[in-house]
């Protein structure tokens, strides 16, 4: 007898929850950056091609695998996959479906807590009168947990815990009473806020409210196609990556939500409705907010430079300052709308990450809903605190890379192989179309069998061996230099540079240039090295402790690898490897729990 009595209240509720799962911060912060960096309007071509050939097929696979597992009382991927094929390996591949959710939630809830805090600060008018530098500094201070922006000590930690508590509370109310209710309130509000901001962005007029350019200039920049970029594998890889993140594929949350749908009920129309709703939010609303507004105030060149900060940088360091230009009332409205919509996008996704973890405990160990929700919250807190305390040391980025990027691709690649080749397309197609309210074109049989698996394998290997500068012409049998963001490049610590020892007596410069500043900021000491050889100056700041002794002085020319300061210190690589160890440990622990649960089911003859 299972204690898992979770159920959906209504079909619309399920679709809004599923769309909420997909609609995340990336729709507003990541998509516009990707489009700007990958050919403007031409990015939409590979993006939509990837959606049709990879996104939709994977949605079908994940909804089907979920509903199939649910028929046997399995609401998570380890045992759903086991039902699809009895070989031992599949239930351990299914571990990704719990691991990814838990590990992503650990850092995702942290970003979510920033949006909650920024919504409050926008409403309080904290950003009133701050310069652009002041707003950027506010964010840096916020991340530096030892400082406070409101007088609350450890403010970032407080908001993180508050955010987790809210997640736990909603999750403990179940699917229909919690997740679905939240989605029914938050998704319409999110779209409303998005429409308001998009209209503001598009109608921005040069000379009004301090804007230098029309908002339309930004749209023009974003949508002007550069067809030559279509021949660049980097663009295709970026488009495929974006489709993954935006639809929350390869994560295990779609399967979990779908596992509460009965076999006679539709999953085809449901998946199409939720999937296209996400595309609407991303392409129609997501493209009309950040870029048009930012270009309206800063112009093209500056925004291209700012996109190097990434979506998070632009969203948190720049947008509050731009909203301030709209006057006291509109700026509050815009700030609350923008960070509010980000918060809604974030929490509807983190709730989807919590559900598989809860369902696993309820299915396998008969835990109650409330206890499972608390267990999820505690696990996220334990795993997430290192990202809060050691954010600057790169722990956050490591979680994002391994749990939030690589795991998704590996899992999706393996699950499409399971569905189309091991479980069998004939059986899979019958499961998918059972109870369907719309007909799927038969071409999707071919796509599911051949196109999507080949695309996913290509994405995985492309990401693994991505060449430096994304110059694919350099690929040869004699070898090539790896991009530091490639999977192999990351494994080999290609981005670490000269500071590759955990504990050391000297810190070596990671940049060649001139030491042009030694300064103290927020009680921290920094030395800045600026490279002036290129037309555009680039600087790097390195923090040192009071106990360290500077080995350089202002005006010195240093080469990469020259000592900057001496004295005992712990290098970033230590925190990076600790993060990787932690993530591996989590995977192994979940794998061990799955093994224990399996043995238990064998003893009880329930599998």
């Amino acid at each position: 007898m299972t204690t898992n009595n979770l159920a959906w209240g209504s079909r619309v509720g399920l679709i809004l929850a599923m769309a909420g799962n997909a609609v995340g911060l990336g729709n507003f912060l990541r998509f516009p950056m990707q489009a700007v960096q990958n050919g403007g309007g031409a990015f939409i071509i590979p993006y939509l091609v990837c959606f049709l050939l990879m996104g939709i097929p994977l949605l079908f696979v994940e909804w089907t695998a979920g509903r199939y597992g649910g028929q046997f009382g399995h609401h998570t991927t380890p045992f759903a996959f086991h039902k699809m094929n009895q070989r031992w390996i599949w239930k351990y591949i299914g571990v990704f479906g719990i691991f990814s959710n838990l590990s992503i939630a650990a850092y995702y809830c942290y970003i979510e807590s920033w949006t909650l805090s920024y919504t409050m600060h926008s409403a309080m008018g904290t950003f009133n009168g701050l310069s652009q530098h002041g707003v950027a500094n506010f964010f840096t201070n916020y991340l530096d947990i030892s400082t406070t922006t409101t007088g609350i000590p450890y403010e970032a930690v407080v908001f993180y815990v508050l955010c987790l508590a809210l997640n736990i509370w909603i999750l403990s109310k179940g699917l229909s009473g919690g997740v679905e209710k939240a989605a029914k309130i938050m998704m319409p509000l999110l779209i409303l806020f998005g429409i308001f901001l998009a209209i503001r962005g598009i109608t921005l007029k040069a000379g009004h409210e301090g804007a230098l350019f029309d908002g339309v200039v930004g749209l023009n920049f974003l949508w002007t196609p550069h067809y030559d970029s279509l021949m660049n594998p980097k663009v295709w890889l970026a488009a495929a990556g974006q489709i993954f993140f935006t639809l929350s594929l390869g994560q295990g949350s779609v399967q979990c939500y779908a596992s509460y749908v009965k076999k006679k009920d539709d999953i085809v129309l449901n998946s199409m409705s939720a999937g296209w709703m996400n595309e609407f939010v991303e392409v129609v609303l997501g493209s009309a907010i950040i870029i048009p507004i930012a270009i309206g105030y800063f112009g093209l060149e500056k925004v291209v430079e700012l996109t190097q900060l990434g979506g998070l940088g632009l969203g948190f360091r720049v947008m509050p300052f731009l909203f301030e230009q709209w006057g006291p009332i509109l700026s509050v409205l815009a700030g609350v709308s923008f960070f509010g919509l980000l918060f809604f996008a974030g929490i509807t996704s983190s709730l989807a990450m919590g559900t598989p973890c809860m369902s696993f405990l309820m299915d396998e160990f008969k835990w109650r809903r409330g206890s499972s929700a608390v267990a999820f919250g505690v696990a996220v807190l334990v795993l997430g605190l290192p990202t809060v305390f050691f954010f600057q040391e790169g722990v956050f980025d490591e979680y994002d890379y391994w749990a939030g990027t690589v795991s998704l691709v590996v899992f999706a690649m393996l699950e499409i192989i399971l569905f189309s080749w091991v479980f069998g397309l004939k059986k899979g197609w019958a499961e998918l179309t059972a109870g369907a309210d719309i007909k799927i074109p038969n071409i999707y049989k071919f796509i599911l069998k051949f196109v999507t698996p080949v695309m996913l394998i290509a994405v995985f290997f492309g990401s693994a061996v991505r060449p430096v500068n994304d110059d694919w012409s350099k690929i040869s049998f004699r070898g090539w230099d790896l991009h530091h963001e490639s999977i192999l490049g990351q494994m080999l610590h290609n981005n670490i540079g000269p500071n590759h020892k955990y504990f050391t007596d000297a810190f070596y410069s990671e940049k060649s240039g001139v030491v042009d500043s030694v300064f103290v900021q927020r009680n921290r000491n920094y030395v800045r090295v600026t490279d002036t050889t290129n037309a555009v100056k680039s600087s790097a700041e390195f923090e040192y402790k009071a106990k360290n002794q500077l080995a350089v002085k202002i005006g010195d020319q240093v080469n990469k690898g020259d000592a900057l300061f001496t004295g005992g210190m712990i290098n970033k690589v230590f925190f990076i490897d600790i993060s990787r160890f932690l993530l591996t440990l989590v995977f192994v622990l979940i794998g061990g729990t799955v093994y224990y649960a399996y043995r238990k089911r064998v003893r009880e003859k329930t599998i």
Partner: protein
Amino acid sequence: METQALIFMVTSEVIITGLTLYFFIRVLFTKPKGGVDSYTDTKE
């Protein structure tokens, strides 16, 4: 706005908005199947 960019934007957005509305409306107007279904609200 340049014509090419405008065509690109309008075409993409019309297709995406159209399909989003089409699928959602179909969900709203599809009659529930008889018998016990997946949704608790229809059981009340």
